[in-house]
């Protein structure tokens, strides 16, 4: 059993950057097409990262590099834990830790844009942290386990029991994938009031590491989306992939439809959505039990 777990984790470590990079490229193509442009090639993110790796790296201080490295290592660790079938709660705790490392990298630079991005990122974490924990709890309520490898062998997919959690999770995915209207801390678009926020003072290979970590993160998040649909029937995996595609497309669409909101709006809206959808769902489940 341990052998399988390690193989699964290794597969994730090898394949996730490929899939994540392609997803990121697809996202850019979709966005371009929605705006009536041709857009870059799908493999553009790989070109970007390749370039960054071959550029000189400038740093503001030497701790920065350490924090970014830890961020990448823990993001990979988190994803590997999830795909190997580990404990959902542990996955989310480790995830928030890796995020804190990125925030610290930005804090350490003492640059105004970096620190502003870091504060906003912390606020974003405060917004989505309740939902990520609730997702784990929702799966536990629905299928009685925190372990991913047990959750995928249940007869009924989790979505049947916890649709509210799914809506909440897709909602905070906007923050997690750094999409407008909640891309407060860093942005993929030009000419912003916070320049590049969190990543302003990162360059060259450091920035490349952050990009790669985000690919891993994207795959992990979409994996969780898929988990809502998977049961012991092999065909359910197809449904999961379809759901992932739909959710991903939806996020890109939302990105292109809405302008960025203020942080207060984000806090109020996300917490209300979490309370209304996930909270109500939790109450109902509790009553039914």
């Amino acid at each position, binding site marked *: 059993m341990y052998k399988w777990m390690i193989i699964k984790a290794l597969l994730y470590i090898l394949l996730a950057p490929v899939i994540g990079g392609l997803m990121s490229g697809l996202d850019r193509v979709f966005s371009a097409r929605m705006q009536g442009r041709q857009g870059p090639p799908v493999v553009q993110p790989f070109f970007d990262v390749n370039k960054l790796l071959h550029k000189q790296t400038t*740093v503001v201080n030497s701790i920065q590099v350490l924090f970014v490295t830890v961020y990448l290592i823990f993001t990979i660790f988190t994803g590997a834990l999830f795909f190997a079938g580990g404990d959902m709660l542990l996955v989310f705790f480790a995830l928030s830790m890796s995020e*804190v490392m990125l925030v610290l990298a930005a804090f*350490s*630079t003492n640059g*105004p844009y970096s620190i502003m991005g870091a504060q906003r990122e912390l*606020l974003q974490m405060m917004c989505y942290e309740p939902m990520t924990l609730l997702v784990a709890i929702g799966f536990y309520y629905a299928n009685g386990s925190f372990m991913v490898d047990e959750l995928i062998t249940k007869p009924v997919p989790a979505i049947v029991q916890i649709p509210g959690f799914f809506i909440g999770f897709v909602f905070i995915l906007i923050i997690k994938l750094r999409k407008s209207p909640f891309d407060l801390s860093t942005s993929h678009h030009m000419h912003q009031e916070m*320049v590049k926020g969190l990543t302003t003072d990162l360059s060259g290979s450091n920035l490349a590491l952050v990009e790669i970590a985000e690919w891993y993160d994207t795959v992990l998040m979409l994996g969780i989306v898929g988990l809502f649909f998977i049961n012991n029937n092999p065909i359910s995996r197809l449904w999961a992939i379809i759901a992932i595609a739909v959710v991903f497309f939806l996020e890109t669409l939302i990105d292109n439809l809405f302008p960025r909101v203020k942080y207060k709006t984000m806090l109020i809206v996300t917490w209300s959505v979490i309370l209304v959808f996930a909270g109500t769902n939790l109450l109902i489940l509790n009553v039914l039990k």
Partner: protein
Amino acid sequence: MRSAVIMIGGFTIMAVAIYVAVNVLMSGDTSQFMYLEEAHAADTVIICGEVFLMCLVCFLSIKYKKYYAILISMAGTLPVLWMDLTGKAVEGNTHFRIDTFAAVMYLIVGIVGILICIYASGYMKDYHHHHTDVVDRSNYFLALMFVFLGAMFGLISSDSLSWIYFFWEITSVCSFLMIGYTRTQEAIDNSFRALWMNLLGGCGFAAGLMYSNMALGISNLSQVTSAEASKVIMIPVTLFAFAALTKSAQFPFSRWLLGAMVAPTPSSALLHSATMVKIGVYMLIRLSPVMEGTLTGVMITVIGGFTFFAASLLAITVSDGKKVLAYSTISNLGLITACAGTGTTEGVWAAVMLVLFHAVSKSLLFQTVGDIENCMHSRDIEDMHGLIIKLPRLAFIMIIGICGMFMAPFGMLVSKWAALKSFVDSGSVWLVLFLVFGSGSTLFYWAKWLGKICTVIHQSFELEDITPKSEMVSIFPLTAMIVVMCFAFPWMSGHMVQPILNEAFHTNIPDVIGGSDVVIMMIMVTMIFMIPIGARFLSIGKNSKMTMSYVAGVNAGDDRHYIDSFGKERALYMSNWYMEDFFGEKKLLWPCIWIATVLVLVMLIVVVGGALHV
């Protein structure tokens, strides 16, 4: 000379505490009751002590014209005196109980408490060096700390309710005297606030004590906790729980702990980590088996969960380092209270673990903030900008302390995780919601503090680290304990917490956090400590070019100044976010207190009133 006496005395006490605790933990038969044949003398001493405490409170109340304290003090003490003197108290029961939980508390009080006293011996010297306006009564202060610890040991060991009540009152009065140490108007006001709130709790305790003695014929805590669940037994349990809420500074009684900051740092460290607030949760954990599934349990859980959430929001809005720590204490104690209130085995497991980890991390943090204040003359978090350059040694210790409070593989988070599982298992939905939203805001306020410390400022210089050796004697062991406890927690769970559950519930529970998870956590802890070391050897980032941070191209060369549109150099500073207009103290504190007051009143009226009615 004084330091030497404190060191020798302190380490002796610590050694004895550890010896006793280890003996208890290693022995098979953990629950030892002791009946003193010749208890008459001790009882007399206790009665005299109570009278003395009451007189002391009356004297000081008259001196500072705070007459209401007299009323509350008398209301608590006189009826108990009357009961004892008229012989209405139940006689012939055990006085002491020494079991695993007591042993664990011995360890906390003996190690953390004594380390704080040792820290205080050096700190008070510096304190009076900086605060020349305060009369130097540090001998009195240090003596009080040891009296406090003595009362703690007494309280933990006692099984007789009237003895517990006596030690309970000592701690209330001691904390009152310590908070009022500087004798400024603010200190006096805050100390009397602490006094009346704790005496009010004492009144609740006295009422519970009298009811159980006179109506139920019970005089021991162990009899209360092992009694058959009935409506009548819930009356003393509810009253004791009410007293515990005041001691552990839950809403609506939180303001005394916030006011306690005016005292010198060692007293804050003592009140927050090893002693005062831990008495409250100690009581609740003891009562936990009786509270399962009762209205009292539910109300305690709700108050605890609410406190956890509200205090963590309030902690976001303050920038005074000690105040953040105070709110974080209130918030974490709320979590412990909520865990104990569920009355499930997992809940108690989480509560004991939280008590352990919180005591160590919080005392370390308070001591470090105290030292930083001595070095920089400020304890504001904004002034800790770039601490890692200014005071690297203290900054690293502080980072470990903060990580210990909220980061993934460290102890507090492990316990929080167990708490979450126990809430889910007991089906308390509201608590789950409080916990998840509370942990979001907890993350925010700790991480922004951590960020402030980790900021690297160019061309900034190391300040003189004037922390005396005696303080380092206290700080280093605590730092080491945080790290060691990360690795040792499976062992602690097996040898310290499981026996407590056996004693309280007479059942064995499966491991709350399973085998493979522990392995993964160990991998994480190892990684956290290995990566910085590896980075040193592997020369990560050594080939990078250094630049200044980006300030829109107008950086004036040192990351802290920029050129404005008139060509003048201006200072640049990024403050943390406090969002005061959103959840500021002014907006949130009083509503929280009122909501919690209503909850407490409902609990008291429904449970006590309902039982009396029948």
